């Protein structure tokens, strides 16, 4: 009879985890991560390093082009520092993106897990609800809701969240349906564990990879959505800056002060491509089917 001396494989650390290794060897993913980290740092640390705050009006330097009079990105028609406004707006835009992602991922995950595990009529009702939400064009729903509700950053976050949880729900439902049939779920049932334990403690950790990918891409989409709605004037209202309403304010001065549009436009581009690169990198890293070395 063998005893307690059976050899065990050595533990693998986080950095040597295969998925982490694959992510680290993906150039685009690293670029994306760098873009997002740099932008986030700039938005949350940058304001403390600038000589002006976002509401200070420098009367002598209206329409100042970039790199004049201590304004690295120039000023707007009122003489407000664009860099300060950009970073402040970035805090709001990034927060809206993140919060919308968290809310929509939680809703989508719960709906997906329950629909996938329960199946039957509960699953059918939940998934038809998903279909119903998908049937609305998200942007119009957003605009209509924004017209009725006072568009504070919090409200915009909620509105974006409730129009973007469906994708996660569909992905999770499909994954849960396959995981549900695994032996370890059978084993958990035969141990007499409760359904909620099985759904959220046994199954959920095993479907986390596609959720992480979808969530990252949702951040990018939410930032874009917020910018879009704010640009149309239904989103976050001045004087609170956001990248979208900065663009809105810039359009009438496109000829005299093109930097007013270029700077927030670039910020949006960097944020969206950064998150998309990370999302694609995570997809490649976490997908066990793409077993590249």
């Amino acid at each position: 009879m063998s005893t307690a001396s059976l050899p065990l494989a050595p533990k693998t650390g986080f950095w040597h985890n295969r998925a982490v290794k694959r992510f680290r060897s993906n150039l685009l993913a690293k670029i994306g991560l760098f873009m997002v980290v740099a932008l986030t740092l700039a938005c949350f640390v940058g304001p403390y390093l600038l000589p002006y705050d976002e509401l200070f009006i420098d009367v002598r330097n209206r329409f100042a082009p970039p790199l004049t009079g201590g304004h690295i990105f120039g000023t707007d028609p009122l003489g407000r520092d664009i860099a300060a406004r950009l970073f402040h707006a970035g805090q709001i835009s990034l927060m809206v993106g993140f919060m919308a992602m968290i809310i929509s991922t939680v809703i989508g995950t719960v709906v997906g897990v329950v629909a996938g595990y329960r199946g039957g009529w509960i699953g059918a009702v939940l998934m038809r609800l998903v279909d119903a939400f998908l049937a609305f064009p998200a942007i119009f729903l957003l605009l209509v809701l924004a017209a009725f509700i006072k568009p504070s950053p919090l409200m915009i976050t909620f509105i974006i969240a409730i129009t973007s949880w469906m994708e996660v729900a569909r992905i999770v439902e499909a994954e849960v349906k396959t995981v549900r049939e695994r032996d370890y779920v059978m084993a958990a049932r035969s141990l007499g564990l409760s359904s909620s334990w099985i759904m959220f403690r046994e199954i959920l950790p095993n479907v986390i990879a596609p959720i992480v990918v979808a969530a990252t891409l949702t951040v990018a989409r939410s930032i874009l959505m917020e910018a879009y709605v704010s640009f149309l004037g239904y989103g976050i209202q001045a004087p609170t800056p956001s990248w979208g309403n900065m663009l809105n304010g810039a359009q009438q001065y496109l000829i005299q002060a093109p930097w007013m549009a270029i700077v927030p436009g670039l910020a949006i581009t960097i944020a969206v491509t950064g998150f998309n690169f990370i999302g694609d990198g995570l997809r490649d890293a976490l997908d066990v089917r793409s077993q590249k070395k």
Partner: protein
Amino acid sequence: MTDLNQLPNDNVLSVKALSVRLPKGMERSHAVQEISLELKRGEILCIVGESGSGKSVTASTVMGLLPDAMVVERGQIHFGGRDLLQLPEKERRALRGRAIAMVFQDPLSALNPLMTVGDQIEEVLINHKIGDPASRRAKVLSLLGEVGLPDPALMAKQYPFRLSGGQRQRVMIAIALALDPDVLIADEPTTALDVTVQAQILELIKDLQRKKGASVMFITHDFGVVADIADRVIVMEKGRVVEEGTAREVLGNPAHPYTQKLIAAVPRLRETAAEDKAEAAPILQVKNLQKTYRSKSGLWGQERVVKAVDDISFTLRRGETLGVVGESGSGKSSMGKVLMKLIEADAGAILLDGQDIRPMTEAQFRPLRPKMQMIFQDPFASLNPRLSIGTSMTVGPIAHGMDRAQAQTTAIALLERVGLGRAAFDRYPHEFSGGQRQRIGIARALMFEPEIIIADEAVSALDVSIQAQVLQLLAEIQAERHLAMIFITHDLRVASQICDQVLVMNKGRVVELGPPMQIFRNPQEAYSRQLVEAIPGKSF
């Protein structure tokens, strides 16, 4: 141990001092190391070994189908006066199929699901630019006939999903034989098949080899198969050849300790009767159990009705092991799940300690679940990869009201009992081998001190030597705790070793129920007789 007296031109294929390197970070540096072997004209050479012994890598290297991560470090493979390893890829491709052909383990994944069987055979001929459409059609039909498929003309028009596993493997063999190769490499070609089908396929390979005079390199882990088919045997362990010789020498008088160990671990039909436990109290009585699967394809599609469990009755007594044997699709696994109430039965009674559990709801049955526990087939699938072993083992008892500290102590004691030690408690499933995981599965099932254990193919996925150890452990634990066990298996040899009663199932029905001596030595029903006949390596 190589035979130096053989003339060199008698060898169709010879491998010399071949080493294949594995990527860094694997458990050893080389998949195969310094192996040499000869395949003689017109012989069946069996390469035997457990998983990870390098037998499949050897075959892939000969075929030139090594995965990119593995590199041939040195060595030669001589075939037809040339070293295959020195040939450019283009010339090797021309040899593949034409001179050396391969039959894979899983015929379903090796066949293209979107092409008819006939087209897939013809494809090989077209690719090697042989014949014209008419002659190719004729060749396809004659091949299908040769591998023993009924009505070749009809068969050629079928898609793989319409065929049974055995028929698919016959198609694979037909494809391999399409170009009349000199060497046929068969990598575990019968492992995925039922015993009766396995016996037919082995017969077919032997027959074709005799008729065509081809040389066959047959890779297997099963010494029973070796005994039935091999002329010569090579035994591999951890990438090295440990023993080589004629089948009679190696099986009858193994020289190397590893071979001796392997042969000793091969399950055999038991010769003596088990002690009678008929006077023990019944713990589980099953009466007229029914389970029917219904599936509809499309809205107006015809309903498919499969009777998975059809009117099954038996009695299980305390301390007794009931073996449930049958081929795939016989309903034996469905029955196990119905008994565990993981699937709802349609009709019948399941009396657990005299109480009918079949009509109970999940909530009513939950307090009774600890009495009945299950050990699953696939040790890689039955443990949640995201939970530590400790969590997996203790959640159940804690949910049933056991105190956390006590659950931990029990879990550690059980891990020690199954031979793993307390260090296993904080580890995750991927850190264990298959055999170790199966031990964890057993420990988990014992956490509740159950009265009945249902083991569904619990040792089928394990190598023979590990299998023997796990069976030994199960037998010890059963004796210690006076457990009743339902042991579901397709392997009649294993069933004969540990069971007190054997229930033979076919198409959801009980064919025969009786003590192992009756089932295996004197089967009453035609179907059980057929099953017993098909057991590989009976002579050995």
